């Protein structure tokens, strides 16, 4: 349950809850996450809460990049769980920016294991402005 996939490097996490649940790796616009036992529920599948935390981290990271590092907060997240993922699975997502306005960013992402989508997410982010 170890290292980064080829060509990916670990991203520096700052939020205590993200440090607690990570690590997350990145290569260009794609993020990767390896499911460990402690991310799973008692049925041995990755917990929905862990997947939504991963969505918040990665879509938030993409907002940060797309806005040239403008702080933002999650306003809304809509999640659909299509298929279970298990310990050992590598989950990958390439977040997509659907629309950006002066105050908001609309994001979406398909989270995949081996090319198959396990979760789809849409989220709205409020930009807080730069100092």
């Amino acid at each position, binding site marked *: 349950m170890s290292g980064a996939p080829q060509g990916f490097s670990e991203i520096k996490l*700052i*939020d*205590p*809850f*993200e440090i*607690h*649940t990570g690590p997350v790796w990145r290569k260009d616009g794609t993020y990767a996450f390896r499911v460990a*036992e*402690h*991310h*799973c*529920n*008692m*049925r041995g599948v*990755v*917990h*929905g*809460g*862990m997947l*939504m*935390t*991963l*969505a*918040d*981290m990665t879509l938030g990271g993409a907002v940060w990049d797309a806005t040239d590092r403008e*702080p933002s*907060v*999650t*306003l*809304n*997240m*809509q*999640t*659909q*769980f299509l298929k*279970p993922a298990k310990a050992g699975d590598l989950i990958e997502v390439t977040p997509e920016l659907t629309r950006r306005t002066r105050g908001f960013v609309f994001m979406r992402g398909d989270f995949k294991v081996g090319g198959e989508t396990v979760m789809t997410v849409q989220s709205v982010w409020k930009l807080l402005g730069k100092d």
Partner: protein
Amino acid sequence: MDTALNRLPEGAEDISTGGFNRFAGPFYRLPDEGAVRRFAFAALEKHMNGAGTVHGGLLMTFADIAMSRTSRLASGAKSCSTVSLNCDFVGPGRLGDIVEIRVSVSRQTRTLVFLTAVVFCGERVVMNASGLWRIA
């Protein structure tokens, strides 16, 4: 132990028996209020984001745990899985807050449970959630 845990409401029962539930928790079940199922956690340092508020991922985890548990209680099924979950982040939770969720069943069919929930810090709404669970 963190002092916030000492401020949990009376009758709080730890439901974080293992897995991610325990890793992210602890989470507690509170006594029902009529048909409303209630759960709580104390916001600890590990639950925070860099801005000093409770992380959205942890709030969604809390909702998923409470709403999944409510689906099982309503249906009597051993396990229920989340099909979809929609969360609106209404306001921030802070370190040391006792965060409570109140979950209601909108409709139950043979195979599905429709739920709504509101997350509070005291009287203040922190998150609205609604979702759909499949009875396994």
